[in-house]
C-alpha cells in the first residue's frame, strides 16, 4: 500500500522529495568527509599560513596546572613493579631515586643522594643521602628505606619484571632467582644517610641506573599496611616532587605539589594532571584544542608526522630502540646463514623509511641503536641486491629456484602490515622468492614468538641503559629474549670476556666485534631506529626530546610570557635530528624502557 501510494504521487512531488532526501544524505557525507580532508597532505595554503607557527591553541591555562596525555592506562605505578612508559612516567612524578636525569642530557644529577663515591676497584659505591629527607606524610626517609625498597624489588615473590636491572649488584641475581640468601646481597645502610652498594663487577652505567624508577624508595609502612592497595590515593605515601591526590581509572591522575619534597622551593606548578588517553587521534585533538599541553611520544598518528614537522611545537629526536625482523634459525631454509644474509642484504631500508614511514624513522642496519658513548658500531648492513642474489645462490637457491614457502609474522597493526608487504615485495623483486604474511592478534603473537614458532617475526627492542650490552645481551645463547634461538659460542665468549674487562675501550671493542659477528650471522634483520616525536605547547618550559624519552617533571613550569622569551632562545628546545654514530648529547650514562607495542 505504501508503495502504491508513492507511485500515485505527482511526478514532480516525488522528484522533489527524493531531492530532499539526497541533499540530507550528501550533507551528512560532506560532514563526515570533512575530517578526511584534514589529511596532512591536503591542507590549503590559507590553513598553512594561519597555523604556520604552532599547532592549535597557544593560550596558557588560567590555573598553574600542567596537563598532558600520559597514554595508555598504567597497569601500576608502584615503582617496584612498574614496566613501560606510562607506568614509569606516573611513578617518576611521585617518587625520586638517589639521582635524577638531567632533562636534556640525561646525565645523572644528585637527588635524594647529594653525593656519592666509587671505590678504587670500581666495585663499591657509597651514596650520601641529603639530611632531613621526608616522606610525604612527614616520616623520615633514611638509607634503610632504600635498602628495604631495593630488596623488595629483588625479593623473588615480588615477581618484579625489572629486577634484572639490579643484577649488577653483588649476589642480586642469585637472590632474585632463589639461589642465595637475602643477607648475601651487596647492599648495606650503616647509618641513616649512608647507603653502600657493592657490585659484582665494574658496571660503568650503574649510577645512571639509580635514577630509574625501579630504584626509587617505596614506603615500607604503607606497603605492609595496605598490601596491593597501597598505591591508592589516601593510602599512598611518596617522596617525589608531587603526591597523588586523585586517580580515576582510564581517565586521569591528579598530582599535587609535595611541600615536604627537599627541593619544593623550586617546584613551580601547583598540580600536574596526567590523562590516560590511548587513542592517538584523540590525543592530538586534545593538544590542538589546548586541553593538554604535551602529547607524549608515541601518541601522534604516524601519518600526521610529515604535516606536523612544519610546526614549532613539534619535537623530534633519536630514540634508543630498533625495529627488526627476528629469524627462527632452527627452521629450514633459515638455518642456512647464506639465506639469512641474502634476506638481510636485500632490504631497502632507505626506501622503507623515506616512502613508507615518511622519514619519521631512521633507516638502520645495526642491531644496537646509535648514540652509545665511546662505542664504535660495526659497519651497517646495507642494500645490495647483487650481493644478496650471490648469497642466495651460495645458500643453494640460485635465482630463488626451489625456495620453500616461509612467512613473516606480525601482530595486527596497519603499520606492521605495510612494512611486511614492502619487504615481501623487495624479496620477490630482488631474490625472486615468495613470502607469505601472517597477521596475529597480540596475545597469539606473543605466544608464538616466545615459543619460537614462526619463520620470521617482527620485533623491536628498547634497552634499559646506554650500553651495547642491553641489546647484545639478549642474543646470547639461552637468553629469554633471544627469540631467534640464535647461538654462537664466539659471540657468547666475547660478551663474557667483555663483562670481566676493566679497560672501557677494550671492553667496547669486544662488544663491537660481537655485534659484527651477530650481523654477519644475521639472525636479526634490522630495519629502522625509533625516534621520539611529541608536541609541547610553547608556554611549557622544561621538556626536551631525550634519547630515552625520559622526562623528569619536577621543574617543569608554565611560562606566561613565553612570547617575550622567544626571541633569543627561539622558544622551545632545539629540534634534535637523528645523527648516527656517537653523539655528545647522549654522552651520559643512560637507561631505557621496554617497548610494549599494544595491538
Amino acid at each position, binding site marked *: 500500500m505504501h508503495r502504491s501510494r508513492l507511485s500515485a504521487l505527482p511526478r514532480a512531488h516525488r522528484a522533489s522529495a527524493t531531492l530532499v532526501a*539526497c541533499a540530507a544524505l550528501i550533507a551528512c557525507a560532506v560532514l563526515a568527509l570533512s*575530517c578526511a580532508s584534514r589529511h596532512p597532505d591536503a591542507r590549503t595554503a590559507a590553513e598553512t599560513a594561519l597555523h604556520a607557527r604552532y599547532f592549535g591553541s597557544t593560550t596558557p591555562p588560567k590555573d598553574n596546572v600542567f596537563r598532558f596525555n600520559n597514554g595508555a592506562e598504567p597497569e601500576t605505578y608502584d615503582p617496584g613493579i612498574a614496566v613501560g612508559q606510562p607506568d614509569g612516567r606516573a611513578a617518576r612524578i611521585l617518587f625520586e631515586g638517589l639521582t635524577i636525569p638531567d632533562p636534556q642530557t640525561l646525565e645523572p644529577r644528585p637527588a635524594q643522594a647529594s653525593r656519592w663515591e666509587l671505590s678504587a676497584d670500581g666495585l663499591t659505591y657509597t651514596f650520601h643521602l641529603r639530611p632531613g629527607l621526608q616522606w610525604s606524610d612527614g616520616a623520615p626517609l633514611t638509607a634503610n628505606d632504600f635498602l628495604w625498597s631495593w630488596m623488595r624489588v629483588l625479593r623473588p615473590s615480588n615477581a618484579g619484571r625489572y629486577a634484572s636491572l639490579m643484577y649488577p649488584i653483588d649476589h642480586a641475581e642469585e637472590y632474585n*632467582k632463589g639461589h642465595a640468601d637475602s643477607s648475601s646481597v651487596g647492599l648495606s645502610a650503616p647509618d641513616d644517610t649512608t647507603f653502600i652498594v657493592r657490585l659484582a663487577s665494574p658496571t660503568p652505567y650503574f649510577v645512571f641506573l639509580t635514577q630509574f624508577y625501579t630504584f626509587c624508595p617505596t614506603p615500607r609502612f604503607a606497603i605492609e599496611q595496605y598490601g596491593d592497595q597501597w598505591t591508592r590515593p589516601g593510602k599512598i605515601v611518596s617522596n617525589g616532587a608531587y603526591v597523588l591526590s586523585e586517580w*580515576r*581509572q582510564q581517565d586521569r591522575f591528579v598530582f599535587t605539589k609535595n611541600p615536604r619534597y627537599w627541593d619544593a622551593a623550586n617546584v613551580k606548578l601547583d598540580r600536574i594532571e596526567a590523562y590516560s588517553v590511548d587513542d592517538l587521534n584523540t590525543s592530538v585533538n586534545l593538544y590542538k584544542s589546548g586541553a593538554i599541553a604535551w602529547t607524549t611520544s608515541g601518541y601522534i598518528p604516524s601519518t600526521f608526522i610529515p604535516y606536523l614537522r612544519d610546526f614549532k611545537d613539534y619535537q623530534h629526536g633519536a630514540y634508543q630502540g630498533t625495529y627488526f625482523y627476528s629469524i627462527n634459525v632452527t627452521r629450514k631454509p633459515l638455518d642456512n646463514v647464506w639465506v639469512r644474509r641474502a634476506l638481510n642484504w636485500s632490504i631497502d631500508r632507505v626506501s622503507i623509511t623515506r616512502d613508507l614511514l615518511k622519514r619519521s624513522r631512521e633507516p638502520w642496519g645495526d642491531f644496537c641503536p646509535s648514540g652509545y658513548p665511546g662505542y664504535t658500531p660495526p659497519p651497517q648492513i646495507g642494500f645490495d641486491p647483487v650481493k644478496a642474489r650471490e648469497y642466495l645462490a651460495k645458500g643453494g637457491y640460485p635465482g630463488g629456484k626451489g625456495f620453500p614457502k616461509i612467512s613473516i609474522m606480525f601482530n595486527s597493526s596497519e603499520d606492521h602490515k605495510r612494512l611486511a608487504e614492502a619487504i615481501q615485495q623487495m624479496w620477490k623483486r630482488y631474490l625472486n622468492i615468495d613470502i607469505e604474511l601472517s597477521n596475529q592478534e597480540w*596475545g597469539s603473537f*606473543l605466544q608464538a614468538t616466545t615459543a619460537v614458532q614462526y619463520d620470521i617475526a617482527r620485533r623491536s627492542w628498547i634497552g634499559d641503559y646506554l650500553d651495547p650490552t642491553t641489546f647484545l645481551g639478549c642474543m646470547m645463547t639461552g637468553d629469554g629474549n633471544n627469540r631467534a634461538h640464535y647461538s654462537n659460542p664466539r659471540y657468547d665468549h666475547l660478551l663474557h670476556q667483555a663483562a670481566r674487562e676493566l679497560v672501557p675501550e677494550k671492553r667496547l671493542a669486544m662488544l663491537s666485534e660481537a655485534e659484527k659477528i651477530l650481523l654477519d650471522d644475521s639472525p636479526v634483520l634490522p630495519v629502522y631506529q625509533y625516534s621520539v616525536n611529541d608536541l609541547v605547547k610553547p608556554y611549557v618550559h622544561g621538556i626536551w626530546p631525550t634519547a630515552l624519552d625520559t622526562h623528569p617533571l619536577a621543574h617543569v613550569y608554565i611560562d606566561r610570557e613565553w612570547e617575550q622569551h622567544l626571541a633569543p632562545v627561539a622558544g622551545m628546545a632545539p629540534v634534535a635530528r637523528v645523527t648516527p654514530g656517537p653523539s655528545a648529547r647522549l654522552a651520559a650514562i643512560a637507561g631505557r624502557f621496554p617497548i610494549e607495542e599494544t595491538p
Partner: protein
Amino acid sequence: MFTYIVRRVLLIVPTLWVIATLTFFMMRLAPGGPFRAERDIPPAAMEQLRHKYGLDRPLGEQYGRFLVHAVTLDFGVSYKYPGRTVREIIFEAFPVSAELGGWALLLAVLAGVPIGVLAAVKRNTGADYSAMGVALAGVSIPNFVLGPALVLGLSLTIFLLPPALWHGPASRVLPVLTLSATYLAYIARLTRAGMLEVLRQDYIRTARAKGLSERVVVFKHALRLGFLPVVSFLGPAAARIVMGSIVVESIFAVPGLGRYLVNAAFNRDYTLVLGTVLFYALFLIVLNLLVDVAYAVLDPRVELG
C-alpha cells in the same frame, strides 16, 4: 504473569552458568596468557605470578573455584592491573557507561519517536522524506566517522565544546550525540513503520469514525501499538548502549566499561573477561525480560505464559 516472571528469573541461573563455562574455557583455549609481554619474564617470576593467581593449579580446580566465587559476584583481581578487583573495575566504569548510554538512549527515544510519528502521519510528503533521509544517513554513518566529524566541527573549528575527556556537563554533549545518532535514526524508522502498520487497522478507523480528534487517535490509540517494535528493539539496544561502546569511549576518552570489554580479551585478563561478560549477560537477560513484560502491558493481546 507472576509465575512467568518467576520462571524467567529462575532460568537466568542456568543461562549464566552456560555463558560462564563457555567463556571460561574459550579464554583458556586462546593462545598466550595474561603475563606474556614483548620483554621476557624470568621463569622464576612467571612461576611466582602464576602461583599468586592460582594459575598453576589444575584447570578443573580453577574452574571450580571460579564458580564458587562467581556466585558471590567475586571474580577476583585483574591480572593486567594488579591490586584492582574486577568488581571494583566494573563498579567504577559501569556508571560512566550507563550515564553516557542513558543520555544517548533518552535522546534517541525522545527525538526518534516524534520524528517517526511525524513521518508516518505526514507520509510521502517532503517532511517524511527528509526525516527518513536523515534517518537513513544516521543508520549508515558509523560512529567512528560521525564522532571525529563532530569534534572537527564543534571543538576544533569553533571552540564550542571540549574534544574529549569526561569532565563537566559540556564534555557529555559530543559523545552522547555520537552514540545516540544510530539509535535515534533506527528508532525513528521503527516508529514510522510501526505507526504506518497500525494506522491502517480497523480499530483506528473505528476511532476516527467515532469522531475522535486526530491527536487522540494518533497519540492515544495508534502510538501505543505503533511503539511496540521500538520496545522490542529497546531491550537489547539498552543493554548494548549502556554497557558502553568501545569506539565512542575511545574517541572521547570516556572512562567507561566498553573499552575493558574488548581490551580484557586482548590482554588475556581472564578474570576481567569473565566479570565483564557475565555482567553484560545478566544485564541483557534482565532487559529482555523487562521488554517481554512491557509488551504485555502495552499490548492487551499479548499473554505471557
